[in-house]
């Protein structure tokens, strides 16, 4: 009973995480300029990965696996945060003007 409940919750989190990755990718394709695309990538992927990690933590078999998943999350967060800073910084330095309606 408890196991199937956790399994279901984990599945729901994994699917929700995938949905946010999908929305982030859609934003990457649909948004009009580099800055708005960075919004989509940083925020939607961060949330998507977070949900996937929590979903997988529920299925983890050992505390070491949980630690590993959380470290992966933190490393990806740091890397994507730094990458988005670099891309935005580069664009600003090249005086790429933000898209306006």
């Amino acid at each position: 009973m408890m196991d199937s409940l956790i399994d279901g919750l984990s599945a729901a989190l994994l699917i929700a995480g995938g949905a946010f990755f999908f929305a982030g990718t859609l934003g990457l394709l649909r948004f009009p300029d580099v800055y708005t695309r960075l919004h989509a990538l940083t925020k939607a992927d961060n949330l998507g990965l977070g949900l996937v990690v929590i979903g997988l933590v529920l299925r983890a078999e050992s505390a070491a696996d949980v630690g590993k998943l959380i470290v992966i999350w933190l490393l990806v967060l740091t890397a994507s945060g730094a990458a988005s800073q670099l891309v935005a910084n580069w664009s600003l330095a090249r005086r790429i003007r933000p898209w306006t309606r």
Partner: protein
Amino acid sequence: MPPDAAAQTHTETGPPPAGPPAMHWSAPLLAVAGRFVVFLFLWWLLTGGRTDAWLFGAGSAAAAAVLPLLVEGPAATPARSALLPTLLRLPLLVPLFLWESLKGGVDVSLLALRPRMPLAPALLDYPLRLSPGPAPVLLASLVSLMPGTLAVIDGDRLRVHVLDATRSYDDDLARLERRVAQVFGIKLNGAPS
């Protein structure tokens, strides 16, 4: 009593402790060693303790540990004294981080899914009241997770790209800046309150 007093004066007149120079030569070395240990631990964690590729892991950890020294020079080694309390206070930001991540992710996802995306982007400047260092970096990262804002550090200001220029973000930014200052245990420059 007299022996105590004698002992007291003795320690007081003893040679003064060697005044530490602005930065001891060992500080950058300690920083490299510390980073190496942390990266090695990460490698160990990520590989699940397997030893097949430890040479590659140790090499990568060593390269990553030395790299900041090559890029920034030894002068950039930060003061270690304030690091521990800051690390201990960092969990204070976790609820805020999770909540803003959720709001920001849902917000931008809904925007991307709407047939006509209601975007009204603009580039704003937010004058930083945090001194340069790791604090503004943390602030910029948090601001970039908030709904509708993306921040880049530019000297003593934050350049904030917003998706909806019709609303004001100043209060949110100031609130986050205060939280970050709290975590680092530093005062904001020219803070009114």
